[in-house]
C-alpha cells in the first residue's frame, strides 16, 4: 500500500547512496532570478544535459506597467534590473532553453504559466528555482523548490540528490462557507500547524473540500505548502485534473492521452496507505482570514482582534508577537477591521488565476477603490481571458489599475514596491518584514478580501459587502 508520494518517488529513483536518493527530474523551471546557476555553468564550463526539459519564465524582474511593457526591455530604467531580464534572454539562447518571456503570449509567473502550458503533469518530478514550486503538486506530482546550486546540478545532470521526506496527510472536509476561499483554508492550515509545522514532510491534501475545488483553487492550496515549511504539497489527480490538462500544449494527445490517463489513474494513494502524520481541518468552520503579523502563521479570522502579547502564556510567543506588532505598527486588542491600508495588491502565484480575478472583480463591481489598488494577472493568457470577459473594465471603472503579468509587488524585485511604513492588503503568500519593499507592511488575504479592502480603505469582512467569493 503506497501513498501518492511513494509512487512518484519510487518511480524516479536512479540510484541510492547511504540515506540519499538520486532522483530523476522530468522538468526544471527557472526564471530571471536564476543568474547564479548560469554564472556557475559558465564558470565551470558545464553544459545543460537536456535543454528540452528546462523551461524559463520572465516573471520576477519584468515590469508589469503596460506602458513600460510596450516600450521594450531596453527601456527598463534600472540597469541592474534590466541586466537580470537580459541575462535570462542571453543565457537561455546560449543553452537553447525554451523561454516564455517578454512579448510571448504565453509569458507569466512560472507557477501560473507552467501549468497553463500543461507542463505540470501527474506522476512527474518537477523542480523549480523557486520555493513556491510546490504549487505544481496540485496535479498529483512531486514538485519542490530548490536553490541555485541544486538548480545547477539539475540542469547539468537532470537529477537531484534528496533525503526521503516523511509524509503528512492534511484532510480538509466540509463545504466552504460564503465568502471563504482556498486562500482562507490554507491560511487556516498554516495557523494551525505553524510555519515550521511541515518541515521535513511532503504534504498530501485530501478530503471533500479539496475534491470539490477547481485546479486553480488547488494550486492556491499547494502553493503555500512551503509557508508551513513543507518540502512539497500534493493532491491526487482526478477528473478535475484531467479536464484542466486536456488540450494544453504539452499535454499528451490522441492515443498518448489515453495511455497517460490510464497511468495517471493509478497514482492516488492506496486505501489504507500509511502517512507519517495526519492533520484534520473542518472547512465549514473556516472564515475569511487575514495575517496581522510578520509571518504567514500569524493570521486570524477577520472577525477577531489583534492579539495582545502580554496575554500569551508562552514567553517566546510574547516576544515574537511584540516584535511583529512593533514592525506592523499595530495596537494590541484593536479590531482587525480597524486596520487602515494604504494600497492593495491582487496578484502573485498564489492568487492571480482567472478564478481569483473573477472573485476580485465581483467585489470591485460593488463600489470604488478609495486607495491605489493593483490587479496583476499571473499570465498574459489570463489577462486576455479576463479582458474577453470584460473584467478589466470592471476594475478600471472601479478605480483599480489593470497591469501586465509578472510577480510584481509580491516580491518587489522589478521596482514595484512599498514605501517604508506603507501598509498593503495583498493576495500574495509572504508577509515577512520587507518582503514587499524595505519597511513595507503586508497583510495577506484572499482576492475578494483584498478587493473589499480597496473599496473601504481598511481591512473588512467581505461577507458584509455581499460580494460572492
Amino acid at each position, binding site marked *: 500500500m503506497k501513498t501518492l508520494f511513494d509512487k512518484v518517488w519510487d518511480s524516479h529513483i*536512479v*540510484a541510492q*547512496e*547511504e*540515506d*540519499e536518493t538520486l532522483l*530523476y527530474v*522530468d522538468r526544471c523551471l527557472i526564471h530571471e*532570478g536564476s*543568474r*547564479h546557476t548560469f554564472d556557475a555553468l559558465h564558470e*565551470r564550463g558545464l553544459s545543460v544535459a537536456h535543454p528540452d526539459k528546462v523551461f524559463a519564465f520572465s516573471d520576477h*524582474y519584468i515590469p508589469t506597467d503596460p506602458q513600460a511593457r510596450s516600450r521594450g526591455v531596453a527601456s527598463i530604467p534600472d540597469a*541592474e*534590473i534590466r541586466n537580470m531580464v537580459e541575462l535570462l534572454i542571453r543565457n537561455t539562447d546560449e543553452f537553447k532553453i525554451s523561454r516564455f518571456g517578454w512579448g510571448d503570449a504565453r509569458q507569466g509567473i512560472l507557477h501560473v504559466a507552467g501549468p497553463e502550458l500543461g507542463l505540470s*503533469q501527474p*506522476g*512527474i518530478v518537477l523542480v523549480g*528555482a*523557486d*520555493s513556491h514550486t510546490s504549487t505544481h503538486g496540485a496535479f498529483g506530482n512531486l514538485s519542490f*523548490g530548490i*536553490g*541555485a*546550486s*541544486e538548480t*545547477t*546540478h539539475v540542469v*547539468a*545532470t*537532470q*537529477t537531484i*540528490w534528496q*533525503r526521503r521526506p516523511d509524509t503528512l496527510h492534511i484532510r480538509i472536509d466540509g463545504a466552504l462557507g460564503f465568502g471563504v476561499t482556498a486562500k482562507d483554508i490554507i491560511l487556516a492550515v498554516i495557523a494551525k500547524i505553524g*510555519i*515550521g509545522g511541515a*518541515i*521535513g514532510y511532503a504534504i498530501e491534501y485530501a478530503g471533500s473540500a479539496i475534491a470539490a475545488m477547481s485546479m486553480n483553487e488547488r494550486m492556491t492550496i499547494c502553493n503555500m505548502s*512551503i509557508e508551513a*515549511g513543507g*518540502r512539497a504539497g500534493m493532491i491526487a489527480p482526478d477528473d478535475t485534473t484531467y479536464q484542466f490538462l486536456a488540450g494544453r*500544449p*504539452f499535454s*499528451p*494527445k490522441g492515443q*498518448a*492521452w489515453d*495511455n*497517460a490517463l490510464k*497511468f495517471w489513474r493509478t497514482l492516488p494513494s492506496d486505501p489504507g496507505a500509511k502517512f507519517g502524520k495526519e492533520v484534520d481541518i473542518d472547512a465549514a468552520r473556516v472564515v475569511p482570514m487575514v495575517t496581522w503579523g510578520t*509571518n504567514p502563521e500569524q493570521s486570524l479570522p477577520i472577525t477577531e482582534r489583534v492579539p495582545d502579547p502580554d496575554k500569551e502564556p508562552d514567553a517566546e510567543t510574547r516576544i*515574537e508577537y511584540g516584535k511583529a506588532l512593533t514592525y506592523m505598527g499595530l495596537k494590541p486588542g484593536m479590531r482587525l477591521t480597524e486596520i487602515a491600508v494604504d494600497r492593495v495588491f491582487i496578484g502573485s502565484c498564489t492568487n492571480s488565476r482567472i478564478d481569483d480575478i473573477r472573485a476580485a472583480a465581483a467585489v470591485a463591481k460593488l463600489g470604488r477603490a478609495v486607495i491605489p489598488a493593483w490587479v496583476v494577472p499571473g499570465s498574459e493568457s489570463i489577462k486576455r481571458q479576463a479582458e474577453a470577459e470584460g473584467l478589466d473594465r470592471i476594475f478600471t471603472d472601479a478605480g483599480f489599475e489593470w497591469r501586465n503579468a509578472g510577480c510584481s509587488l509580491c516580491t518587489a*524585485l522589478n521596482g514595484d514596491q512599498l514605501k*517604508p511604513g506603507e501598509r498593503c492588503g495583498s493576495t500574495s503568500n*509572504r508577509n*515577512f*518584514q*520587507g*518582503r514587499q519593499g*524595505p519597511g513595507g507592511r503586508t497583510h495577506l488575504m484572499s482576492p475578494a478580501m483584498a478587493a473589499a479592502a480597496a473599496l473601504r480603505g481598511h481591512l473588512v469582512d467581505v461577507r458584509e459587502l455581499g460580494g460572492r467569493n
Partner: protein
Amino acid sequence: MEAFTTWSGIAVPFDETNVDTNQLCPTRFNKVPWGPRFAKILLHDRRFNADDSEKPDYILNQEPYRRAVIAVAGRNFGVGSSRETAVLGLMGFGIRSVIAPNFGDIFYNNSLKNGVLPVRLPTAIVDLLLRQLLAQRGAQMRVDLPSQTVTGPDGATHPFDIAPLSKKRLLLGLDEIAHTQEYGGEIKRFEERQAKDYPWLGAAPT
C-alpha cells in the same frame, strides 16, 4: 565547494525565532553576483540604515562579533524563499556554521552545498547555548564535523546528526556534479526506460 572539518571561534547569539531568508538576504540583493559584496548583504536591513551607515546597536556591528564564525539561533531559521544568497551572505560575513533547533528545508540544503554547516540541536540545548553566549560576550564555540559534536562556551560537548553522504561531501569538499556524473550509466538507463514507458513526456508541444 570548500571543505568543512572543524571550525572554532567566536559564536554570535541570534536570540530570535523565525529568521527567514528575506531577513538574511533582502530580496533586492538577489541580483548581485557572488563576490565580496556579500559580506555586507547578510541581514543588511537590520545592520544598516537607509543611508548605508551602520546601526551601532546591532550585534553583528559590534566587536567581537564582527569576527563570528558560528551563529546560534532560535527555531525555524532560514524558512521562506529558496534564495541561496541567504547562505552566500553568511559565507561572505565569515559564518561557517549555524546551530538551531530546526531549519527551513531549502536553506538547509543550500547551506550544505556551500560548505556552511547547519547543525540541528534539541531546543533545550540551543536555549542553553544562547543563555551562555548572552552571559559571556565573545565566548568561543567549536563545531566538529568528524566527531559530529558541538562544544559550548562551558566546554560541554553536544552530539548532532547529519546524513552520512552530506557529511562525506562536506569533509572532502566533494564536487557533487562530478560525483553524480559517475552515475551516467544509471541515468542513461533510466531515461531509456522512461522514454519507453512514458513517451508523452518527451513529445514536443502542440
